[in-house]
C-alpha cells in the first residue's frame, strides 16, 4: 500500500503543474472580455459624442450586435476554468460521501478517519448529522476542528427560504437576525392545514431556528477552532450518549473542517467530505450535496444500505445517481462514482441475503458508476480493504485521465466562445467610421482667418471708420464741458479785497508789488487748473482703449478674451496680461503694436497748456510794455485794494474771454487723438512688416485655439479619440488569436 500515498502525491503535483496553463487561459479570456467591454465603452463614448448625430448610424449598427451570447459563453467558460483551477489547486484528493440519511455514511467515515461517534454523529437509521463535515487526514495525533459559521445574511436567506416554502406567496420576509425570534410562529402554523405535510415538516425546522437562534447568533460570520471533544455539539443534533440532550449550534454551522490522523498509514493526502443525508427535511440538502459533488470531489461514494425486505432499487437511488451523473458528466461518473452497498451482517437491518441479487441488478443496469462495492461498513477492516483501498487505487490509476477529460470538456466551451467572439468581430469589421482630419490647424484655418479678418481687424476698422472718424470733426463734449468748468473757476482765483489788504498791510509790498505778486500767483493757479484736465483726458483715453479692447476680447469679435478675460481690469492691464500670456518674443509684431497702443496717452501739456500760457501776458508784468497805472496808494488801503481787485478781475475777465474764444479750437483734439491712436493701432496690427503681422495673428489663434474655441477643439479631439478608439478596437478584435482561448497543456 505504500505506493498509494506516493501516487496521490504525484497526482497532486501533476495537477499543480497544469495550473499555470489554466491561469493563462483565464487571463486570456479575461483579456478577451476586456476587449468586448472596450467595445461597450466605445459605444457609450459614441453616444456621448453624438451631439450632431454623426455617429447615429454606427450606434444603431452597434445596437444590433448582441453581446449576450458572448457573455453567456464567456461566463460558462470562465466558471469552468475557475472550477478546474480550484480542482487542480487542491492539496488533497477529495472523496465525498453521499446518500440518503441512515445509509451508514458516518459509520464509514468513522472507520476511515478513526474518529468516534462523538465527532462524527451516527445513529442507526436516524438523521443525526447536522452539518456538512470535511475530514482531512493529517500527520498529527492532535484532533481538532475549524468550525465555520454562516454569515448573518446567509442565515437570513435560509430563514426567508423556509418562510417562502411554507407561506408561499404571502410575502413575509425578515431583514435582520433580531427579527428571527419575533417571527409569529402561531400565525404561521395556523396558516398550514394538515394536508400540507412537507410544509409542516419545514415549519418544525424553522421553529428550531426561531427558538434557538440565540444559541449561535454570536458565532455567525466567524470561524472557530475547537478540540475533538467539543466538535459534536457543533455538528450533531444530539449527544451520542444521551439522545435527550439536543444540540442546535449545528443550525448555524456552514462547514466543520475536522483534522485528524487516519489510522490507515498509506491513506495519503485525502479529505473525506461528509454530506447531510438526502431525504432529511431540511431545505437545500440535495443541492448542497450536488454542489459538493461537483466542486469539491475527486471521487464520490454513494452509500446505500439495502433493506432485506425490499431488494429493488428505488427511484430515490436512481435519481441520486442520475443527478450526480448529470452534474459531473456521465463520463466522469463512470470513472469516479462508487456505489457502496452497505452489508449489514447481523442484527436490525441485516441484509446479507439480498445483496448478491441487488449487486447483479445494479451491475446489469449500466448505471454511470465506476464500481459497485459491497462493504460491511461496520467493519473497520472491510471498510479499508473493500472501500478505501479500491477507491484510492482507482483514483491513483485513473484520475489523470479524468482530469484530462475534464480539460477537454472545458476546452469545448472555448469553441462556443470563439464562435460568439468571431460573430462580433465580423459585425464590427463591417462598420466604418470616417477618418478625421489629423491636422486640427488645417481644419480650424477658415475659422481662424474669419476671426482675425472680420472679428478682429474689420471690427477695429469699423470702430475707427464709423465712430472715431466722424468724431474728429466734432467737439469732444466731455473735454469741452471740463474746459468750461475750468474756465468757470478762473475768476475765483482773483483774491478778495480783504486778502489784498492783508498783503498790503504786511508792509513789505507797495501797491505795485502787491498787484504783481497777485498776478504771479494767478498764473500758477490758472495753469494748475488746466493741468487738472489731464484727468478727463485719461478717462477719454481709457474709454477709447476700452472700445478697442472690447473688439479684441469680445466673443462676437476678436475672441481674445478667452485667452485673458477682460473683466474688472483696465485696458492697459488687459494688454499687459495678454502680452505676458502670449509671450512677447513669440509674437514680436503683435507685441510691438499692442505696446505702442498701450503706451498711447496724451495730456494738456502736449497741446493746450502753452496756448493757455500764451493768453496770460496781460497778467505777466515781465511781458507787458506798459504796466497798469494805479490811481491809489498805501495811504488808502481800502481804495487801493479795491482798485487792485478791479484790475485783476478785469484782466482775468479778458483772459477768460480770450481763452473762451480760442480754446474751442481744442475741443476736437481729443477726438482726433483717439482716432489717430486707433488708426495707428489698426495700421500696425494689419499691415506691419508687409502684412506679416497677419501671419502672427494666425499663429496666435492657432496656439490658443483650445482656449478660444474650446467646444470646437473638444469636438475635434473627441472625433480623433473616437476614431483612434475604433481603430484600436478593431485592431484588438482582429489581432486576437483564437488559440489563446484554449487550455494548452504541454
Amino acid at each position: 500500500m505504500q505506493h498509494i500515498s506516493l501516487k496521490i502525491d504525484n497526482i497532486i503535483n501533476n495537477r499543480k503543474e497544469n495550473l499555470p496553463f489554466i491561469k493563462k487561459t483565464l487571463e486570456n479570456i479575461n483579456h478577451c472580455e476586456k476587449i468586448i467591454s472596450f467595445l461597450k465603452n466605445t459605444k457609450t463614448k459614441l453616444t456621448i459624442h453624438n451631439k450632431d448625430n454623426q455617429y447615429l448610424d454606427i450606434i444603431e449598427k452597434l445596437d444590433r450586435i448582441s453581446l449576450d451570447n458572448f457573455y453567456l459563453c464567456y461566463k460558462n467558460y470562465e466558471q469552468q476554468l475557475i472550477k478546474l483551477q480550484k480542482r487542480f489547486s487542491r492539496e488533497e484528493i477529495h472523496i465525498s460521501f453521499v446518500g440518503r440519511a441512515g445509509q451508514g455514511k458516518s459509520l464509514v467515515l468513522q472507520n476511515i478517519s478513526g474518529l468516534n461517534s462523538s465527532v462524527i454523529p451516527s445513529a442507526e437509521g436516524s438523521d443525526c448529522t447536522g452539518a456538512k463535515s470535511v475530514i482531512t487526514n493529517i500527520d498529527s495525533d492532535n484532533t481538532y476542528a475549524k468550525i465555520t459559521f454562516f454569515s448573518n445574511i446567509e442565515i437570513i436567506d435560509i430563514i426567508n427560504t423556509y418562510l417562502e416554502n411554507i407561506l408561499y406567496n404571502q410575502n413575509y420576509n425578515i431583514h435582520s437576525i433580531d427579527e428571527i425570534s419575533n417571527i409569529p410562529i402561531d400565525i404561521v402554523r395556523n396558516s398550514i392545514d394538515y394536508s400540507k405535510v412537507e410544509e409542516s415538516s419545514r415549519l418544525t425546522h424553522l421553529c428550531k431556528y426561531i427558538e434557538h437562534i440565540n444559541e449561535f447568533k454570536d458565532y455567525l460570520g466567524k470561524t472557530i477552532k475547537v478540540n475533538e471533544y467539543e466538535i459534536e455539539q457543533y455538528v450533531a443534533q444530539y449527544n451520542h450518549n444521551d439522545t435527550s440532550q439536543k444540540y442546535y449550534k449545528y443550525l448555524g454551522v456552514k462547514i466543520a473542517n475536522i483534522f485528524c490522523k487516519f489510522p490507515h498509514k498509506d491513506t495519503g493526502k485525502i479529505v473525506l467530505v461528509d454530506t447531510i443525508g438526502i431525504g432529511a427535511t431540511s431545505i437545500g440538502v440535495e443541492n448542497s450535496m450536488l454542489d459538493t459533488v461537483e466542486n469539491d470531489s475527486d471521487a464520490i461514494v454513494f452509500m446505500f444500505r439495502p433493506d432485506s425486505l425490499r431488494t429493488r432499487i428505488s427511484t430515490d437511488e436512481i435519481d441520486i445517481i442520475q443527478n450526480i451523473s448529470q452534474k459531473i458528466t456521465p463520463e466522469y461518473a463512470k470513472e469516479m462514482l462508487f456505489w457502496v452497498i452497505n452489508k449489514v451482517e447481523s442484527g436490525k437491518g441485516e441484509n446479507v441475503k439480498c445483496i448478491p441479487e441487488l449487486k447483479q441488478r445494479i451491475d446489469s443496469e449500466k448505471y454511470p458508476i465506476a464500481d459497485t462495492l459491497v462493504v460491511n461498513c461496520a467493519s473497520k477492516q472491510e471498510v479499508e480493504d473493500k472501500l478505501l483501498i479500491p477507491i484510492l487505487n482507482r483514483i491513483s490509476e485513473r484520475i489523470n485521465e479524468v482530469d484530462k477529460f475534464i480539460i477537454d470538456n472545458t476546452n469545448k466551451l472555448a469553441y462556443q466562445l470563439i464562435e460568439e467572439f468571431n460573430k462580433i468581430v465580423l459585425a464590427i469589421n463591417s462598420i466604418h467610421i470616417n477618418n478625421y482630419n489629423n491636422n486640427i490647424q488645417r481644419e480650424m484655418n477658415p475659422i481662424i482667418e474669419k476671426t482675425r479678418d472680420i472679428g478682429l481687424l474689420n471690427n477695429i476698422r469699423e470702430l475707427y471708420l464709423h465712430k472715431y472718424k466722424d468724431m474728429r470733426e466734432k467737439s469732444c463734449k466731455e473735454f469741452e464741458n471740463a474746459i468750461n468748468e475750468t474756465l468757470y473757476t478762473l475768476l475765483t482765483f482773483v483774491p478778495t479785497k480783504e486778502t489784498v489788504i492783508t498783503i498790503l498791510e504786511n508792509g513789505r509790498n507797495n501797491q505795485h508789488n502787491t498787484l504783481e505778486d497777485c498776478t504771479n500767483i494767478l498764473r500758477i493757479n490758472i495753469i494748475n487748473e488746466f493741468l487738472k484736465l489731464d484727468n478727463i483726458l485719461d478717462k477719454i483715453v481709457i474709454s477709447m482703449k476700452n472700445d478697442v479692447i472690447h473688439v479684441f476680447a469680445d466673443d462676437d469679435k476678436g475672441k481674445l478674451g478667452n485667452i485673458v478675460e477682460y473683466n474688472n481690469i483696465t485696458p492697459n492691464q488687459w494688454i499687459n496680461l495678454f502680452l505676458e500670456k502670449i509671450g512677447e518674443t513669440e509674437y514680436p509684431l503683435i507685441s510691438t503694436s499692442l505696446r505702442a497702443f498701450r503706451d498711447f496717452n496724451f495730456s494738456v501739456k502736449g497741446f493746450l497748456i502753452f496756448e493757455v500760457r500764451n493768453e496770460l501776458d496781460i497778467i505777466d508784468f515781465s511781458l507787458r510794455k506798459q504796466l497798469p497805472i494805479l490811481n491809489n496808494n498805501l495811504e488808502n488801503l481800502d481804495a487801493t485794494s479795491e482798485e487792485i481787485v478791479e484790475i485783476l478781475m478785469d484782466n482775468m475777465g479778458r483772459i477768460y474771454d480770450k481763452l473762451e474764444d480760442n480754446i474751442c479750437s481744442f475741443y476736437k483734439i481729443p477726438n482726433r487723438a483717439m482716432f489717430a491712436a486707433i488708426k495707428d493701432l489698426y495700421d500696425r496690427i494689419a499691415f506691419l512688416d508687409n502684412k506679416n503681422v497677419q501671419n502672427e495673428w494666425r499663429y496666435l489663434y492657432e496656439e490658443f485655439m483650445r482656449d478660444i474655441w474650446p467646444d470646437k477643439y473638444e469636438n475635434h479631439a473627441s472625433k480623433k479619440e473616437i476614431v483612434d478608439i475604433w481603430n484600436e478596437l478593431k485592431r484588438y478584435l482582429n489581432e486576437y488569436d483564437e488559440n489563446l482561448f484554449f487550455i494548452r497543456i504541454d
Partner: protein
Amino acid sequence: MKKDKNKDLEINVLMLGGRRCGKTSLLTTIYNSFDTTFGSTDLTITPTDNDTLNILFDKNKEILKLFENKRHSFAIDEDTYLSTSSGSDNYYKFTISIKGKPRGKIKLNFIDYPGEWLGNKKYGSFFTEKIQQADVILITIDTPFLMQKSGKNNEAKNHSYQIAELLKTHLEYGLNGDNVSKMILFVPIKCERYYYTENNMSKLKERIKEVYKNLISHINNEAYRNKCEMAITPVLTLGTIEFSRFDRTSNGKLKTNPTHETFIPLYVFRDGVPHEQQPIYCEQPLIYILLYLIKRAEVARNKKKESRFLIFKMLKSAVVSIEEKFFEMPSADDFVKQSDKLKSRLESQRYGYEIITDPLKLKQK
C-alpha cells in the same frame, strides 16, 4: 434848371440799429467831428431845431462825464437821456450849409425809433414807409457784440438778421427807377479795441460782411447793384476808452441784461489812465452822405446832357427827385465845388473801410 432861391434840400437818414447801441452818441460825435474837421472850410453844420440841440448838448455832457471815470473798468449806459425808449420815433435834424450862403441848405433828418419796434408786426408799415422815404440808411453796429464771443450775443444786441431781412423786404419799394436812390452805410461804433489794441480793423470789416452777407449779396445782384451805394464806415466815437470784456459773475458765467438778454459790456481806458475823448473818423458818415448827394446829382446832370429820353423820363416822374431838388438849390454849385475837398477826406480802403457797391464811383472825379 431853374433855381428856387428859398429851396432847401431835405435828406432823410433812417438810423437802424439795436437798442442802446449808441446811435445818439454817434450823432453827437458826428456833429462834433464834422464841425471840427470842416470848421476851417466853407461847409458848416448846425442843429436845425432846439430839440436836437438840447439832446446833443445833454448827450455830449454825458459822454464827457465818461472820461472823468475813476474806476478801472466800467459800463457805458447808452441813450440815457433819449426818448427812444419812450415809445415813439424821433427826428434829429441838422443843417449843412455853405458859409456865407444863407439860402439853399441841406437838411439832414435823422430818424430814430424805439429798438423794440424791430420785428414787431405792428410797426411793419412804419418801417416800410421810412425805408421808402429814406435816402440814406445808416446801420449802427455795437462792435463788441459783433466781434466778441463769436458774435453769439450779436443778434440780441444789433438785430443784424432782423435788420437785414427788413431791408431785403422793403428796399424793393425804395429803389426807384434806374437811378441810384439809396445809400446804405454800415457804421460800426465802439471799435477802439480793434483799431488800437488788436490793430485788426480788416477783421471787423470781414465780420460785418459775413454777418450781413445775405443783405449785401441781395443788393449786389443785377437788379439793385446800380441803384444802391453801400459802404462800411467804422467810427471811433470815444477814442481813448475801449471795450474790455463782458461782465461775468464770480463763477465765470456771463452776466446778462435781464430784459434784453444782452451781455453787459465793460470798458476801460486804453492805457489804464483816464484821457480826454479822442474821436476819429466820426465825420466820415457825413462825408459819405454829402458826397453821395453831390455825386448822385452830378451823375443825373451828366445823364441829362447825354440823353433827352432820360430827361423826358425824369420830367414824367410824378415825384420830384433828389437830383432835381439838389439843383434847384441856389447853393447847388457851391456844394458841388466842395466835392473835391470831401473826396480828399474820404476814407474808403483803410481802417476797416470799404465801399461795397459803388455805382456813383464816389471817389472819381
